[in-house]
């Protein structure tokens, strides 16, 4: 039986098509449909229930040294209110998960991790904590709302009692939104400006309703998992289980800037060093034929398999089918034409740079 988020009734009322996802009942789309929801985020605003995401607190005098040990990014110079993205590697350099680290103070961090990996991540981290450090799972009592799109700031600001975080990848704790205390971060998974609100389940529904009501005039739509996927794909953001998994290193996935090899130690570092130049790389594809490449489809260069598609979709803001693929490093470059074997047919595709979509400044 799937768990319900505090917004489940609101989704059903908005004609959300509810599906089981990572143990929760969540909307894949609403009445408007994926393409319209996607475009609302690109041109106005979209509201997402992302309460399924896991949140854990890492606290104690040794919190920082444990993060440095467990994660590939470097958290040493962080200021309070700052956020960093990081992969977490296994001993072979494969990816356990990718996550966000919020520094509340030097002895207290919040980690936001993928719902489908929550239990795995927590036991992985707990087994490796050292010294004076405690891990507290607050996922069950924490709701999360994402509001994304160029008009997000004005919508949230109207309901907030204090200024919103201004810089991307920063957060402010204890902002009251429509009378409910939230941690508000300027983050997202869409390639647009936007915010993610973390709040207690209790009274969370009031915030959702207030944002919906406030947003209507600005063109805000509630958005489901479908649009969340097409938006992150256009922005070429990795999705765990597709561009990343236990057998894919963050270097292969093109996340090298979040892997600080100059750190003395982190889990997976020696394996990454031993492996040297990554064997594979993540590339972008534009599909030239009338079809959509899907995860698992084989990528062919001169009829020889060089890798596989990790994610593919019709990109609503670009009006063409795009895909990301993991292929043998150096086998292709931007402009190359190759084939994707999809459902027994070959789709012609062209290698293009990532991301597919970049918001205008």
């Amino acid at each position: 039986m799937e768990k319900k988020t505090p917004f489940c009734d609101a989704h059903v009322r908005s004609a959300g098509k509810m599906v089981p996802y990572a143990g929760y009942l969540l909307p894949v789309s609403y009445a408007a449909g994926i393409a319209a929801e996607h475009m609302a985020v690109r041109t106005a605003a979209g509201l997402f229930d992302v309460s399924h995401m896991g949140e854990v607190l890492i606290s104690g005098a040794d919190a920082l040294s444990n993060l440095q040990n467990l994660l590939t990014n470097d958290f040493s110079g962080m200021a309070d209110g700052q956020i960093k993205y990081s992969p977490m590697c296994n001993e072979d350099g494969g990816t356990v998960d990718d996550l966000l680290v919020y520094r509340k103070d030097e002895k207290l961090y919040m980690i936001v991790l993928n719902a489908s990996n929550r239990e795995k991540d927590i036991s992985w981290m707990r087994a490796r904590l050292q010294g004076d450090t405690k891990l507290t799972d607050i996922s069950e009592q924490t709701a999360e709302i994402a509001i994304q799109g160029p008009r997000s700031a004005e919508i949230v600001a109207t309901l907030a009692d204090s200024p919103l975080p201004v810089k991307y990848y920063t957060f402010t704790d204890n902002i009251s939104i429509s009378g409910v205390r939230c941690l508000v971060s300027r983050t997202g998974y869409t390639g647009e400006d936007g915010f993610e609100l973390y709040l207690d389940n209790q009274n969370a529904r009031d915030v959702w309703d207030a944002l919906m009501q406030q947003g209507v005039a600005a063109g805000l739509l509630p958005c489901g998992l479908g649009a969340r996927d097409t938006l992150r794909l256009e922005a070429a953001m990795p999705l765990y289980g597709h561009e990343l998994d236990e057998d894919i290193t963050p270097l292969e996935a093109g996340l090298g800037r979040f892997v600080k090899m100059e750190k003395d130690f982190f889990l997976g570092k020696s394996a990454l060093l031993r492996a040297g130049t990554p064997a594979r790389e993540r590339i972008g594809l534009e599909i030239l034929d009338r079809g959509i490449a899907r995860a698992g489809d084989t990528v062919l260069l001169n009829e020889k398999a060089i890798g596989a598609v990790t994610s593919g979709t019709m990109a609503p803001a670009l009006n063409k089918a795009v895909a990301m693929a993991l292929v043998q490093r150096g086998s292709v470059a931007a402009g190359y034409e190759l084939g994707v074997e999809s459902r027994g047919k070959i789709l012609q595709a062209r290698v293009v740079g990532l991301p597919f979509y970049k918001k205008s400044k």
Partner: protein
Amino acid sequence: MSVPRDLFYTATSEWVRFTDDGFALAGLTDHAQETLGDIAYVNLSCVAGGAVSAGEAMGEIESIKAVTDVYAPVSGTVAAVNEEAVDNPERINADPYGAWLVKIGPFEPNPALLDAAAYEQIIAGE
């Protein structure tokens, strides 16, 4: 969910309209377009003058979410394909019973087709 009384249906969610001049028009039901979501491509594997067989694929429908075959509801000769729907697949989402895909005729009767009530029962069970 709209299931017009004057049409016939397949269990795979195609509709058929038998026209006064002796053709069978086939398309995707409202339930099918609703389930697929925004349709991106219609790739028909049949062409005017060719043949289709009841229950066999006559093309593919690709939406953002999924890809699915579209099956011929009756056997017969393809009289025409609806290029307008092929070029503007969003028409199928907007007007599933107006946006026919394939016009078949002459065709053979197919006793396995469902009436509206029987089709409604099938989709209610999904």
